[in-house]
């Protein structure tokens, strides 16, 4: 088994957005496919709106839980500026899937720092392959803003080394006890997430 057979996914966002839960579902899907899995966070005081990154590595046998900079295959970004913050971790042929959300912290509102102009454009300008979409609007159109995380998972579903249905099954399993209506809404959100990234031309 070579190290290259390890899939490295970095999920980033801010505390409270559901980054860790989304990564956990991705991890469950990888386990169901028979992979060895390690998942780790840097989330010291994440509950308080700080930066959260969740590293997911899976393959035949995973050693270090941390993804080395420059080796991320897919960056799943829950927020624009946070995606820009971590874009340098992508490997040259890596892909950034970025939710266009703009979450502005108090230090920016106080005028101490500026929010970056066009984070997605900056990631693209750095030579990375980016697909951007608006998970919140998609979720709102589906009638429930809390579906945003399932939209995010739908977005990455076609960029995994296993079929999208493997991931969908884990989402369905997680929501099964909440009833068929909730499961159905999540199925729609998942499909909408997949569609959102396939419709946009993935220009490098």
């Amino acid at each position, binding site marked *: 088994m070579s*190290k290259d057979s390890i899939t490295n996914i970095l999920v980033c966002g*801010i*505390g409270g957005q559901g980054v860790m839960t989304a990564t*956990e579902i991705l*991890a*469950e899907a990888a*386990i169901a496919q028979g992979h*060895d*899995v*390690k*998942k*780790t*966070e*840097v*989330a*010291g*005081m*994440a*509950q*308080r*709106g*700080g*930066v959260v990154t969740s590293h997911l590595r899976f393959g035949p046998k*995973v*050693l*270090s*839980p*941390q993804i*080395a*900079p*420059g080796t991320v295959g897919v960056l799943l970004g829950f927020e624009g*500026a*946070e995606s*820009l*913050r971590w*874009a*340098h971790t992508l490997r040259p042929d890596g892909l950034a899937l970025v939710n266009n959300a703009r979450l*502005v*912290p*108090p*230090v*920016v*509102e*106080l*005028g*101490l*720092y*500026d*929010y*970056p102009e066009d*984070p997605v454009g*900056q990631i693209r300008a*750095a030579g990375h392959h980016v697909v951007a979409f608006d998970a919140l609007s998609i979720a709102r159109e589906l009638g429930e*803003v809390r579906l945003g995380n399932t939209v995010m998972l739908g977005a990455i579903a076609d960029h995994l080394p296993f079929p999208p249905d493997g991931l969908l099954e884990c989402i369905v399993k997680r929501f099964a006890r909440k009833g068929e209506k909730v499961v159905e809404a999540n199925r729609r959100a998942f499909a909408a997430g997949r569609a959102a990234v396939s419709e946009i031309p993935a220009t490098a």
Partner: protein
Amino acid sequence: MAAVMPAPAQSRLLLSGNEAVARAAWEAGVRVAAAYPGTPSTEILEVLATFPGMHTEWSVNEKVSLEVALGASMAGSRAFCAMKHVGLNVASDCLMTMTLTGVSGGLVIAVADDVGMSSSQNEQDSRFWGRFAHLPVLEPADSQEAHAMTLAAYELSERYQTPVLLRLTTRICHVKSLVVTGERVEHEPKGFEKDPQRWVMVPAHAKGRIPGMFAREEALRAESETTPLNVVEVGSDRSVGFIATGPAYMHVKEAFPDAPVLKLGFSYPWPAEKIRAFAKGCDKLVVVEETEPLLETEFKAAGIACHGKDVLPKQGELAPQVLKPAVDHLLGRGPKPAAPAVKPPQVFPRPPTLCASCPHMGIYYTLSQIKNIIVSGDIGCYTLGAGHPWNALDTTICMGATMGVALGLDKGRGESDKNKRVLAVIGDSTFMHMGMQGLLDITYNRGNVTVLLLDNNTVGMTGGQATPACGKDIHGKPAPQIDLAKVVAALGVNPERIKVVDPYELPVLFKTIREEIKVEEPSVIIARRPCVLIDDFKPFRPYLVEEDKCTGCGNCIEVGCPAIHVTRREKAIKPSGKEVELAFVNIDGQACTGCGLCVQPCAPDAIQHVPVTGVPIHVVKTGVQS
């Protein structure tokens, strides 16, 4: 987390190191488990509390938790104790003597070092305690090992009648990987055996226990030579060999897959013969340990030539990207490691913030408006008061330190601080952990300190655990509830100087602090409101900003609420000719829970309730309770 408990034996689960340790402690037949919450160790007891057949508790501090575990062990029960690295400093008084008594029922202390400092005030290496107290130290490298080593630790503990230190790091505690579970094996306590020579540590008895402690250490040294926890992996490229412990082992395997590795899971006492034999088979030997050069220094003292912190950093994690270039340089295969080649883009920092409606915001907004004060602080969410926009906390050292530091600031003041007032800020849980003694010192020694006791009914920073003042136990069931105001009075504070205020009521808070800092004796202001992240918090009707009324003064932004956002900025010239920057705002209705803190500094009355019904309105009162 809930999946850990009901899972039958032989389940293959994705568990964090903390969950794995908890599961294994339960399987080991532990009957008593105690801890004080502390990142990164907190979840161990949270998970254990969901298991049947044992007493679990949040103790008031780590010292008490270790004493509870020791007492349970004396009674013959298997006992468990978990803490973060700095917690073992607090518990060390007990540790340094229990190494003499030894244990009856197996006793394991899980100590979690915050390597990389995600949520701590220092980065100390708890493996030192193994040397200091002559105790065995086990260091797992992932969740499955954390599970296996917890079970091994109980076996060792009972065979050698010794407490065992299970040394974890953040990268063990919070990494999830696959674990195969086992069955619980009950261990019936054999009962307390009266034996004063052993359990009563007066000098005459303790002197007699010291030779036994050293003999035990030697026996453990021999055990370390043969234990399956210390493994040699031969490797194919012998130009460099590694001795690695804990998560650093995984990083070594990732960075140098072909190198020989001696993995020390049982890292103290270490196996000298095994290490010498291993060293002979490698051209160069590198010791990879987080964080201090402990093994390296000891190896060198024993005449074993090795590298370590001469090439690797003495702080932070030894991730592959740190390890690889440093060792490549040592081998002459690469340049001296420099800063990463790819420069990260410049994005604003996003420090943790207080939550919308956090009662601490009212405190720090008020303190930021008062001049000529020195504010000593403590450990908890309220340490964030040192940040923007408040900048209203001047010191933070360790649990409970605010009291002693404030008294020292008062007694040690020079001419330049003559007119300054000293305040001490502390949370309810930190007060009960280690602040009560400090307050007693203030009253006894006639300190002139105004204490702000922030009672949010929980341990906030670690995720909302129960405290003796919240009326609930670790299971959320009703528990005896202590009255903090009565405790403060019993510690010698003049009852007239004890005030209870609502931190949402800024005028009252401001007036109370102003009055109390003028009084030349200790005062305690108890600010009482539940943490917004616990069930006791009930949201109020949210607010919005009436756009046409907002004058852009920016006063509300100074409150520091993350739900307030600037919609546009303009420059304006005041009648005085001074140029000012105006910031017009709105409020995120999803995030606002209607505390009303931002309403109070808004001069033009632009902040109004959203027009919904059915959600109660928070009414700002003006009276002071005493």
